[in-house]
């Protein structure tokens, strides 16, 4: 299983959001770090084909994803950064509706909905309207819909934003479990989330991939004279060293 971006380019007017961006993803969790506007969400939107690329190619197991069309989207689970949700739908309805769009039916759909609501710890909220849920709960609803249908490529944009520490730990552990047989792309500003679960960390700056390596390697590669932020070196130091101005 391989998702490959080759010389991908995206421009918003004068701004070059991604420049000749090339990266290959295989099974595992990829933590994506970058400042606001670095190009993380643009990259995710290009993979989900929510925006049009200006150049390059994105392939899945050697096939261009645009040509694969709905076949590729059938392998995708996407949790966007913004909490876009139908406020009038109940949690169960919302997840069921997305399940329908993913092509699930009958018992498979019902079982899938039960499973992801359980995983996202939303069983107590399944008949409550999503508009009445707190920010953290909405985040879990969005995560639940992304997990539905057993996606091979899971794209999570800020999945733990707004969650309390206990829930973050739970979700992190859960994502770690998921990654065994799929590609998980996880963009976040909460560096500690990535540090504990990511197999690889990508550092993106001004639309370019600066580094991609396991967290330990990135930390080890820091200069000897770097003053740690806390009492020992961590991924936050890597972030500040490479991405801090």
């Amino acid at each position, binding site marked *: 299983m391989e998702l490959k971006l080759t010389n991908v380019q995206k421009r918003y007017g004068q701004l070059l959001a991604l420049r000749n961006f090339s990266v290959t993803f295989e099974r595992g969790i990829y933590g994506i770090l970058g400042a606001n506007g670095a190009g993380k969400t643009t990259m995710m939107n290009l993979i989900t084909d929510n*925006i049009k690329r200006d150049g390059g190619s994105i392939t899945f197991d050697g096939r261009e994803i645009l040509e694969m069309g*709905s076949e590729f989207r059938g392998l995708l689970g996407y949790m966007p950064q913004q909490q876009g*949700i139908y406020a009038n739908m109940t949690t169960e309805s919302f997840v*069921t509706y*997305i399940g*329908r769009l993913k092509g699930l039916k009958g018992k498979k759909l019902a079982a899938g909905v039960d499973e992801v609501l359980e995983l996202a710890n939303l069983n107590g909220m399944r008949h409550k309207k999503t508009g*009445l849920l707190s920010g953290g709960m909405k985040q879990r609803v969005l995560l639940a819909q992304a997990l539905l249908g057993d996606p091979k490529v899971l794209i999570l944009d800020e999945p733990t934003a707004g969650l309390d520490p206990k829930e973050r730990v739970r979700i992190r552990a859960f994502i770690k479990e998921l990654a065994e047989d799929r590609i998980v792309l996880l963009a976040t500003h909460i560096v500690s989330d990535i540090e504990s679960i990511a197999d690889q960390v990508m550092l993106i700056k001004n639309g370019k991939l600066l580094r991609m390596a396991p967290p330990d390697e990135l930390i080890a590669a820091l200069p000897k004279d770097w003053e740690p932020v806390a009492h020992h070196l961590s991924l936050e130091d890597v972030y500040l060293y490479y991405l801090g101005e």
Partner: protein
Amino acid sequence: MGEWKRVLLDPKRLFLLALMALLCAGLFVLSLLDEITPTELGRMASANAYVDRCVEEWRGRPYDEMEALTEAEHQRLGDVFDWYLGASYEEMRISSEEEAIAAVADLPEMVRWIKARDTREFIRTYTTYWDAMAELKSEMIYLSGYEDYLESVQSQAERQSQTSLFGKEGSFTRRNLAKTAEDFKSLLGVEVEFGNSRGLLNWLDYETGDYFHLLAIIIIVLAFLEERKKGLWPAVRATQGGRLRMGVIRMGILLAGSVIATVLFSVLPLLLSMSIHGGWGDLARSLQSVERFRTCPLRLTVMEWLVRFFAVKVLSGVLIGLLIWFVLGVISNPQFSISVLGTLLAVEYGLYAFLPVQSALNMLKYFNIFAYVHTSALYTEYLNVDLFGFPIGIRILALCGMAGFGLLFGALVLNTQRNRRPEGNRDVLSRIALPVNRALDRVRSRLTVAGWEGYKALIFQYGVLLMALVVLATGGLNYLYATVTSEDRWYEAYLDDMEGPISEATDDYIVKARKSAADNDELLYALDRVERRVETLRQRAEEGGYSPWIVDDYDYQIGFGDMSLNTQRFNAAAAVMLTALLVAPLWAFERQAGVTPMLRSAPGGRRKLFRRKALTAALLSVFVWGCVYVREMFFVAQYDSRIFATLTASVRNLDALASFPLALTFGQYLAILYVLRLVMLIGVGETALAVSLFCPNVRVSYVIVAVLLGLPALLTALGVGFFRWVSPLVPVASAELLWGLGGGSLICLLPWLVWLAVGVGALWIARRIWCKGN
């Protein structure tokens, strides 16, 4: 002062109220017209001046003399009409255009159309003058008999009370008889006077103003709840004056708002009506001088009644405002509260509009929110309802109810304002929401993508409410403009009798009819016309190679032809506007919810979803088509079933369709007409869907589709010619294009093709954008 300023001087709200006032006034003027054209406006003004002049000249004369004068006026109009249509009988008083013009020299609109030789406009003008005079005559008959009427109420009550048929002593029926006699006794001796009541009557007939008043009250009450929507409720409640004091201030604002609403939507239309129709000087007459108040047992002048009416209107507004404020304020969930309020209003309207007066539950009809919306009915209708065996007048009942419920809801609102907390409220309705949602989720889990699209459109986007509005709005549409004159009556009756294929039996019928008409000029004149028509049809059918039928042009003219041009356009404009508004939220709703990236990332979120949206738009268009045009079919069937007897005849039997390029029967013609309308309306729906895709939220989408599709259609219907080229109105109406094809003009096909291309093109672009990324 801050809250007063925030609610009453908010620029957006002021703009909305001003717009509503303009719309209310505009709709009032439109309600006076049979057709929405400058010509019709001129005709109405001329007829009003005519009536005003007659009233001034005749005022104070004995009723029998005035009745004779109205008959003379009718005679004068009838003479000119007979001459114009070419009647010939011995007592003809007019024989030339000069004489006709001289006879109606004081009626400029009649002179205009005689000179122009425009039969359609002449007939309409004649009918307008005739009807205006008939109204005056009817008023005279009423006034001359009012004293007798009052006495008859007394004697009837006395007579019936002695008959066991009208209940036992102590029964409601017996008490009702006594009360009615007692109420009307106070009117004995009241002086009724002849005058101009048209301003007042037309204003009383304009119920739309009452709905604007209701809407204004709802807008003001919604302003009280804005803090909840904006998340400022806890902050407001935490201030010193944010609880009870705020409630009291808002009650004052509600009263002021009701005064403003009454001025804008009741007083202004009255002033407008009086300035159009005249009658200012007649406000000092007794109320019963106006026929509509024949059963009103109050001894007041019209002016005194108006002052009292406006005061009641203001207080009714306050009561309705308090009720709405209470319902919206007591339920935490805004959507749920709106649903509850909507249901309450729907039930109340149903009871008010459809509960028969004779029903044992008729108290629910008058003890009803809409009794406070249409307050004038409390004065124009006399009815006592059964309250535990005692007859109570609906006016007294409603006024007592107003005081009682005003106090009750006032107290409840203040209590809610003081004690309701922004967080942690679990009202009764919220408590039942969970089991309701659970049950609904069971149903919703079975919905397919198409089912979900329908569900979203109907429930989340308030499609059900809009559809109810569509049903209500289209219920007010006119379908036929009938100008059956007395002269036409016999001609129509003969055609009705003879309708069918022309054969020897037709000739026999005419011969027999001539014999039985003997020397009745009117019948013979009508038979001449019939005979001429039969000859023309025979000749034309022989040349065209089809079977001649007697088909009455008039039936088709008023239903689908030139005579109903404006009605057709107005109905089509309504259909276009309603379709556009129903479809407008379909895509914009997704954008507003911010779910588009998620939808587009799902395998069924592009083409499949797009197809389902297009299907939903088409179904909503079909719904509007049904409301406007299936209803039209029923209306036509009810009005004149003769049309259905001619469905197998060739359309070329009609004068207007004599050159129709296809050999169609009427059945096929009508089927094509209705299918064309459906296809064009679906085209409008799909165009609105495409526009909706580019709108960031539902509100913007409503505005843009209304401006792009609805407004040009309405302006075309109102007679602004330019817009017919940029609006889908003409192809949706279709009748005039098909009628035009009947004249052999193939250019009529162009508007259909253009708008079909617009619909398909818009859908194609939208599909490309949604499915291919941006």
